[in-house]
């Protein structure tokens, strides 16, 4: 291969957008979680985020970082608050359904950042993650890769920018898992395998009838306490391995976050983490999973068809 051919191959590889389906899935799921968060507390919005709420406007604005760009800081009136709050709802809805993602994603970052910054008390770790991922997502195509009508001169550059943003999202999620795992290693309760008990028994995370059988069983507590931090540290390495390992790793991550959402009662955190996890599946992974699903479905239907053929009608005497 000549240097010119190598260069051409590099340009083609670097500019072909990656992770389009994963990023569209991230948009939809994190949009649903954020929309739920603003709508479920609609009746309490002024107490949670309003200028006359728990964090009074002047106290809150005095503590803002000088470079903080926050819509809610522009004016302390109730009218402005209501306008800004409803802008959060509308922009989040538009972003979730995929209206002009290139234009709406920067707006989505601004409204999410603004609402999050207005009251940090009500945030989860998932909110912290999504507000950072939205910065990277501003440079990516979150529309699922709908083709432009005609490639322009800037199309390869946009593709390169998209791939850098996607790589940033992958690295950020890996960093979350790895650092969450490494912080646990020197914790005494994680080290001795009893941490799950303390997490499940805290009254705010308790689900009666479900938590007790889990935290009273020493084997389950030790197994899942160790599995948690081992899995979190292994996550970035497993994601970089072959497809089957990556898909299995993300399936475990999904099960982990569904459990946290339901058993520990952290639905926003759970769904935002699932959204971030699914962004890590490449387009080839989604195609592979779709083909696997179709093969499995076809095989199941083939197996079912003969048994249906031996049903009462087929078995009836002529």
């Amino acid at each position, binding site marked *: 291969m000549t240097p010119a051919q190598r260069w051409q191959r590099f340009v083609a590889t670097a500019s072909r957008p990656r992770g389009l389906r994963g990023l569209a899935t991230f948009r939809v799921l994190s949009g649903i979680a954020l929309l739920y968060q603003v709508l479920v*507390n609609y009746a309490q919005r002024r107490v949670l985020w309003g200028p006359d709420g728990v964090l009074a406007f002047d106290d809150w604005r005095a503590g803002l970082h000088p470079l903080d760009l926050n819509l809610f800081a522009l004016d302390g009136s109730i009218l402005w608050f209501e306008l800004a709050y409803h802008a959060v709802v509308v922009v989040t809805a538009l972003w979730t359904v995929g209206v002009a993602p290139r234009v709406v994603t920067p707006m989505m970052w601004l409204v999410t950042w603004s609402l999050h910054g207005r009251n940090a008390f009500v945030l989860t770790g998932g909110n912290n993650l999504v507000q950072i991922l939205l910065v990277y997502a501003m440079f990516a195509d979150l529309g699922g890769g709908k083709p432009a009508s005609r490639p322009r001169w800037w199309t390869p550059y946009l593709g*390169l920018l998209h791939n850098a943003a996607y790589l940033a999202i992958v690295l950020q999620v890996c960093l979350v898992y790895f650092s969450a795992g490494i912080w646990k290693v020197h914790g005494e309760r994680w080290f001795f395998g009893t941490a799950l008990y303390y997490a499940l028994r805290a009254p705010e995370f308790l689900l009666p009838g479900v938590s007790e059988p889990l935290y009273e069983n020493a084997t389950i507590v030790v197994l899942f306490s160790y599995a948690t931090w081992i899995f979190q540290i292994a996550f970035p390495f497993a994601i970089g391995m072959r497809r089957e390992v990556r898909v299995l790793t993300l399936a475990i991550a999904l099960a982990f976050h569904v459990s946290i959402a339901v058993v520990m009662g952290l639905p926003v955190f759970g769904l935002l983490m699932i959204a971030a996890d699914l962004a890590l599946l490449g387009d080839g992974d989604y195609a592979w999973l779709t083909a696997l699903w179709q093969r499995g479905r076809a095989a199941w239907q083939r197996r079912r068809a003969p048994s249906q053929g031996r049903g009462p009608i087929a078995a009836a005497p002529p």
Partner: protein
Amino acid sequence: MTTTTPPAFEGRRADDAPAAVHPWAFAGLAVALAATLVLHFVATAISVFPPNPASAAHTASVHGYLAPYFVQSWRLFAPDPGGPSFVLLVQCRGTDGATTPWIDVTTPMFESTRANRLHPAQALHRLNKGAIGHMLGIRDAFTEHLEAKLAADPDNTALREVVEAVTRRDDASAEARSRPLMRLASAYCGGILGPDALDSVRPRIDVFEIPPFSRRHDAIDPSQVRTYEYPWRAAESIPPL
């Protein structure tokens, strides 16, 4: 400088043909993006990993770069889960002088969220927890560390001056730090008595630890509950909860 048409696009439909790229522009952008990613994630890693010599040397510059938009912490249930649990109670006094008993506003929230994992009380409980943490955070670990050192060395006048200065700072910030909890108590009492009939409020925080794993079958011992009771304050103007 000539422009390059990537071969990977060959074989696509004619209307899907790519635009040619300027080699220097494309390579320059690729290098700039790679360098940005490396620097950004090195800084992020330094900020989120446990303290180490590299983070000690670069904390100020890393924080200066990451704040405010990339500030993050991933100590999820780490280093150890199972810190103290809080129950918030409020007592409300009406404009007619009548006083309510202590009203537990936390336990009903737990009951609601246990019955419905999507209940609005999820965020309200986090609000309670945030306001309580803000209030109890007045005495930070640094102050307690200094006080312990002074107790071990009571004749150290220099250390005594430092402790007194830190205590004055803490007292000055106590008023500001108590405001979210007082406003929250006013919101709850406003919901109980009605905002127009409310005169003053006082919050109470019950703090308790869950039993250690070796006594996991035991119930929480009520005699071990620590109570922080705050003085009456004029109700603040806030929508009722």
